[in-house]
């Protein structure tokens, strides 16, 4: 361990929190974490949000986001302690010895500067090499990362390339100045699953070819298992388990790690066929002022009390379908039948019962609630509006709903800011449930949540379905979620339904090309999965 590139010992990181209406107080974000990275090795940092992964990652550049302070321990990089180094010394090492790849490359690139100038900026600022040499190296990295037209790619602006390409460009930017260590902070989390696998493979190859060491931060154990040599499991800023990847995946010691490994353990057997509550009949839709059909002759049925999962990548038309069903976007053609009657195309023409019986839950529970209303007011609103409940009767019903979402009566007077991400989503579920709907449209409701929390939400949704007989139209890009909850599945691609049927039918071969690609791109929690998939794809391509 003596030749460790980065050695963190007993690291303590604090920040000042300003809770509304209370005195500011110091909170400990990272407590007594020790870890080391040797030259050319990849360390995976894994944990749910708030575990301190990014905070530890940035501490290896002695950088504290916002008011974050590195208050204890040592951070030894290339043999010297950088925790208390001055600004000049830090500037000399940032971008030279350690570089950073952010989660959202789309936000991390400056929109006003050409990609090439941003990619080589670090090389020039630190006098690593001259402009011509840096540009040549950038083009070489673009090519190695599989970017289109590597010679000309750098002449574009960030908005002119796709999200997956930007993420690769960011990796090129991090590798360009030949650093000793690269911090990858959730580099594939914001990408579609079919893009994620390509970017992941490109990053892994680039790490191997350049021999650089890396910290790979993610909440997805299956992803980190593909790239890391060692894994550090974190929770609430503390180290839970630290070991070789093989050991963490196959023989975890701690209970929390075991839960992470076995997450998505829900076994859901599809229900027998039943009469449809929702029939979507050859619906075509387009947005105002465009001449492009976002939905092309979609026909789907959702049996009463069951779950139809709509899967696809971004831009496939999933959310537009939800807008059409709720009446926010009247379809250009086709009709929607609901509970045996036609639904008016436009929201304004629907009856109060139409509105009551179709409810929605959103991806961002945060923005779907008024931050200045209490949980009681939020859940009570549909009770007043649809059922005219008041006073004690309303309060009693709110408390029943809170019991149903497993939160307890005590939450009735709390504000959204006081709740965790999972609790916020539960309140949104209670609000939808309060209207006694026949159909709830769930738009990526677990995408923003940590795996274990998401698991809890899915279990709750299944329990509520069994108790209330409500049907779900479940929009997601995550196939593991689909397996856990769906009775029927529709695979969407570019506004069309590529595959539709019961869960068993859709997930059983033979597959169409797109479904095959989608299914094989979902990371599996075993080492070597990535190479296996890529090899079999290459062989197939060669065979054709």
């Amino acid at each position, binding site marked *: 361990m003596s030749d460790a590139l980065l050695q963190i010992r007993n690291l303590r990181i604090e920040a000042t929190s300003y809770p509304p209406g209370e005195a500011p107080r110091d909170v400990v974000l990272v407590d007594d974490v020790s870890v080391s990275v040797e030259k050319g090795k990849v360390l995976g940092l894994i944990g749910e949000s708030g575990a301190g992964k990014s905070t530890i990652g*940035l501490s290896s*550049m002695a*950088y504290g*986001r916002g008011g974050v302070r590195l208050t204890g321990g040592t951070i030894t990089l290339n043999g010297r302690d950088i925790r208390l180094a001055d600004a000049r010394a*830090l*500037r*000399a*090492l*940032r*971008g*030279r010895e350690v*570089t*950073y790849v*952010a989660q*959202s490359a789309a*936000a*991390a*690139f*400056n*929109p*006003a*500067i050409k990609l090439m100038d941003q990619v080589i*900026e*670090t090389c020039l*600022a*630190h006098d690593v090499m001259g402009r011509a040499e840096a540009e040549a190296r950038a083009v070489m990295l673009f090519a190695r990362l599989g970017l289109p037209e590597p010679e000309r790619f750098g002449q*574009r*602006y960030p*908005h*002119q390339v796709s999200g997956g390409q930007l993420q690769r460009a960011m990796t090129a930017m991090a590798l360009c100045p030949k650093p000793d260590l690269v911090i990858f902070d959730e580099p594939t989390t914001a990408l579609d699953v079919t893009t994620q696998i390509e970017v992941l493979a490109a990053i892994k190859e680039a790490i191997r070819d350049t021999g650089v060491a890396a910290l790979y931060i993610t909440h997805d154990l299956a992803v980190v298992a593909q790239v890391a040599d060692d894994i550090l499991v974190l929770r609430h800023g503390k180290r839970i388990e630290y070991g070789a990847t093989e050991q963490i995946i196959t023989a975890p010691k701690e209970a929390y790690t075991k839960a992470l490994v076995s997450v998505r353990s829900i076994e859901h057997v599809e229900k027998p066929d039943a009469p449809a509550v929702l029939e979507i009949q050859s619906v075509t839709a387009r947005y105002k002022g465009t001449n492009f059909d976002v939905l092309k002759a979609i026909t789907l049925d959702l049996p009463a009390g069951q779950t139809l999962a709509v899967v696809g990548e971004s831009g496939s038309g999933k959310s537009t379908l939800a807008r059409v069903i709720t009446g926010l976007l009247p379809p250009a053609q086709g009709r929607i039948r609901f509970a045996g009657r036609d639904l008016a195309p436009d929201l304004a023409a629907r009856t109060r019962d139409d509105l009551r019986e179709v409810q929605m839950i959103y991806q961002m529970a945060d923005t779907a609630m008024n931050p200045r209303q209490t949980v009681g007011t939020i859940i009570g609103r549909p009770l007043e509006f649809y059922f005219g409940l008041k006073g004690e009767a309303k309060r009693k019903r709110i408390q029943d709903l809170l019991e149903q979402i497993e939160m307890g009566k005590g939450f009735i007077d709390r504000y959204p800011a006081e709740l965790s991400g999972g609790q916020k989503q539960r309140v949104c579920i209670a609000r939808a449930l309060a209207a006694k709907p026949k159909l709830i449209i769930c738009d990526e409701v677990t995408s923003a949540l940590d795996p274990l929390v998401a698991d809890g939400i899915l279990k709750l949704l299944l329990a509520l379905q069994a108790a209330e007989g409500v049907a779900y139209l479940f929009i997601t890009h995550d196939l593991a979620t689909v397996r856990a909850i769906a009775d029927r599945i529709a695979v969407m691609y570019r506004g069309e339904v590529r595959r539709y049927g019961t869960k068993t039918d859709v997930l059983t071969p033979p597959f169409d090309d797109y479904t095959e690609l989608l299914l094989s791109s979902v990371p599996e929690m075993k080492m070597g999965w990535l190479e296996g998939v890529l090899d079999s794809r290459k062989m197939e391509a060669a065979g054709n």
Partner: protein
Amino acid sequence: MHPVLTLVVQRVALGLLLLLAVSAVIFLGVAALPGDTAQAILGQSATPQALANLRAEMGLDQPPLTRYFQWLGGVLTGDLGTSISNGTDIASAIGQRLGNTLFLAAWAAVISVPLAILLGLVAARYNGRWPDKLISGATLSAISLPEFVVGYLVLYFLAVKWQLFPSVAMVFPGMGMMDRLNAVILPVIVLVLVVLAHMMRMTRAAILNVMQSAYIETAELKGLSPMQVIWRHAFPNAIAPVVNVVMLNLAYLVVGVVVVEVVFVYPGMGQYLVDHVAKRDLPVVQAVGLIFAAVYIGLNILADVISILANPRLRHPK
């Protein structure tokens, strides 16, 4: 056609349309005033017959719409009419005045715009620390004082007490460049102090707003110095809001400097307008109003065009 060109052409066309509308409003406003040019020339005691003769001679008996188009046609061919108070050609009188005003405004702009942006960048760099407080405090004090107070303070110290510069900004045709500059230095100082604070504070606010972006963190993690981060990464994304405020202030330098011109007895457009309003010289008021409107609209179009050109999404579409 490139989409940016389309946008720019649209903006310019819209500006011309707006200018046409403003010309109609100016014409109607002046026409709606009690009394007309003939009355103003002949005075209250004129006989109806004399008035009618003069109106026929000047074309004032024509319907307003005809007179509007005659006036507009004149404006487009460079004929702004004749002043009734002294019978001179308005266009040539204004030409010289406008030149003086633009000279003063240009020097004030050349000094104040880069200075305001530089001070804004420095204030943003040291946000909340003493350089920021000093810059903000000084520029806010300057803007809080009325212009004539600033003017008289500058006069008292620089012209009277220390006798560094002339107290009266006299310029005349044929004057040499250095003499001219020496003459206008005091009004330029006052104008710079008046417009500095607004532009500086907008620059500071726009930069601080951009500094919240994720790409600023990227730049910091590249090991760039704070000033490099602000200048190369923040400023290009703050141009649009800054340009809008800069143009408003430039317009003010042309159309709003009456008080400063009076304090320094400077023969510019403001004084010219005030003199002729007092004399009820309606053709002059119309002409000056139209020129002021054209300056205002022109500078705002320029601000729009620069904002469009500064946006890479518009400049380089997918």
